């Protein structure tokens, strides 16, 4: 049994099908990647698993560690040990950087908060008195969000475009932080368009038109991702294309 099991997941928004008969099973303690073209439904999948308000009316079943998530809100899912890092993290007026990290932290000590910031490439001395608001760049907010996730010590982390807005120097720190999450026993899901981020994973899922069209090791999936993955009617299935299927 996987840590997260998704059976026949479906979701329609404004009359359009976004998730379509999607099945997924995540092994515990591994780093997984979900790749696919724009509009494939990757972010929606993460939001649905997390229970975000806009994605609550799904069909099918999502189970975390054997527990159905159907009736659980975002905070209840988080307290089970799940969390989500957004593609564009929110800004928090009036909340300082260490306060934001401490909100979710299991260990709320200054030393623990400093450690989480450092591991994500945020020098504590430089950021301790900064606000978690619009004065932080998009990349800084991504790093701050990851620091808060490190502090939370979750069992399942879904990171939407974890490299978005991150400078080259910081990218290695983000990779290390993700490795630290895995080292702590967390299961990580990387939602990405980046071949480099895909390489951080151990297993990958190829998603298109709302469902998983292939899964396997990273090398296998990256062939589709790098060479063939474009929005199309045949759901990025080279085998179907070869067969002339619609």
């Amino acid at each position, binding site marked *: 049994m996987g840590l997260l099991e998704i059976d026949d997941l479906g979701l329609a928004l404004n009359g359009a099908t976004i998730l379509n008969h999607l099945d997924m099973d995540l092994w515990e303690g591994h780093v997984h990647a979900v790749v696919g073209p724009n509009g494939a439904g990757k972010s929606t999948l993460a939001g649905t698993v*997390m229970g*975000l*308000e806009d994605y609550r009316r799904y069909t099918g079943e999502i189970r975390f560690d054997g527990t159905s998530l159907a009736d659980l*809100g*975002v*905070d209840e*899912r*988080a*307290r089970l040990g*799940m*969390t*989500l890092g*957004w593609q564009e*993290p*929110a*800004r*928090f*007026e*009036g*909340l*300082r950087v260490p306060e934001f990290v401490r*909100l*979710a932290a299991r260990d709320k000590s200054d030393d623990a908060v400093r450690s989480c910031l450092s591991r994500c490439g945020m020098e504590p001395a430089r950021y301790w008195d900064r*606000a978690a*608001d619009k004065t932080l760049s998009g990349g800084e907010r991504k790093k701050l*969000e990851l620091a*808060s*996730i490190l502090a*939370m010590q979750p069992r399942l982390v879904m990171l939407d475009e974890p490299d978005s807005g991150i400078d080259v120097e910081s990218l290695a720190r983000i990779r290390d932080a993700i490795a630290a999450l895995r080292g702590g026993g967390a299961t990580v899901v990387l939602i990405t368009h980046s071949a480099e981020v895909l390489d951080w994973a151990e297993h990958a899922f190829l998603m298109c038109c709302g469902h998983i069209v292939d899964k396997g090791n990273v090398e296998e999936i990256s062939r589709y991702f790098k060479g063939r993955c474009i929005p199309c009617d045949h759901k990025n299935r080279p085998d179907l294309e070869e067969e002339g299927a619609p």
Partner: protein
Amino acid sequence: MTTTDLFEVAKIHRQVQDPDVAHLAIGLNKVVSSNGVAGLAVETEEVADGVNIEVTVAEDAVIAKPVHMCFGLLQEEGIQKINLRLTVEPRARVAVTAHCVFPNAEDVQHLMDAVIRVGEGAAYSYMERHIHSPQGGITVVPKADIHLARGARFKTDFELLEGRVGRIDIDYETTCDADSRLEMNAAVSGKGDDRINIRETGHLNGERARGVLTSRVAVRDDASADVYNELTASAAGAVGHVDCKEIVQGRAVANAVPVVQVNHPKAHITHEAALGSVDSRQLETLMARGLSEDEATEVIIAGLLRFT
């Protein structure tokens, strides 16, 4: 009521023991404690219906430590009226922290009429923090007529977050000469049947004058808030910004009425306002870290009301 009581409620009893810290405490309509420092002249006069206060910061004087003012009453009923004339002479610098303390108010009025003159190249920073009773039996009416001379700087932070608002009617109007800098901030949290009325006006009359008016209001239950921000720019290089955010919960009602007026082709004013519920992305981010919806909402509102 003793001075100590007022200072303890305001949590400034340690600061005012420092002989190098100037302070003035008014209990109801009597001067109950004062301390002066070089460069700062304070004259007071108890009159039939209030206290007249004249504060002058001498030319070129730099008051090293913030001056503490404490206005209030510990009784349940009373009318406190303060007439304040404050002059910061050219190139002087001073910061004032005022606590307005009404922890037991059931039928109290606090009326403040201030005339503030900040001289050429001078700097004046004023922080006013209110501590009210949980009953909300108070009416607060602070009015200020402020003028900034060339190159003067003035910053004011008004904060009413502790206890119930009751009724508040703020009316500050500032005129700004060339190269002056104005920053007016107000943060108020209302609940129950509180009524909040904030009117902040800035006139950027001089060249290169700059002004920012910022209001942060949270209302819940049956509270209501009306925020009128008016900023005019009438000279070349005058630049201003008006920023109003109000979070509304329950049956509360919020209104924001921004007025921006530009009277010169080389002047510029921007405006932003956001009224409504707590931002859903912020809320879901905190909930995804395990905070309940109520906890997350409190964190977001507390942050909104805190100027950083």
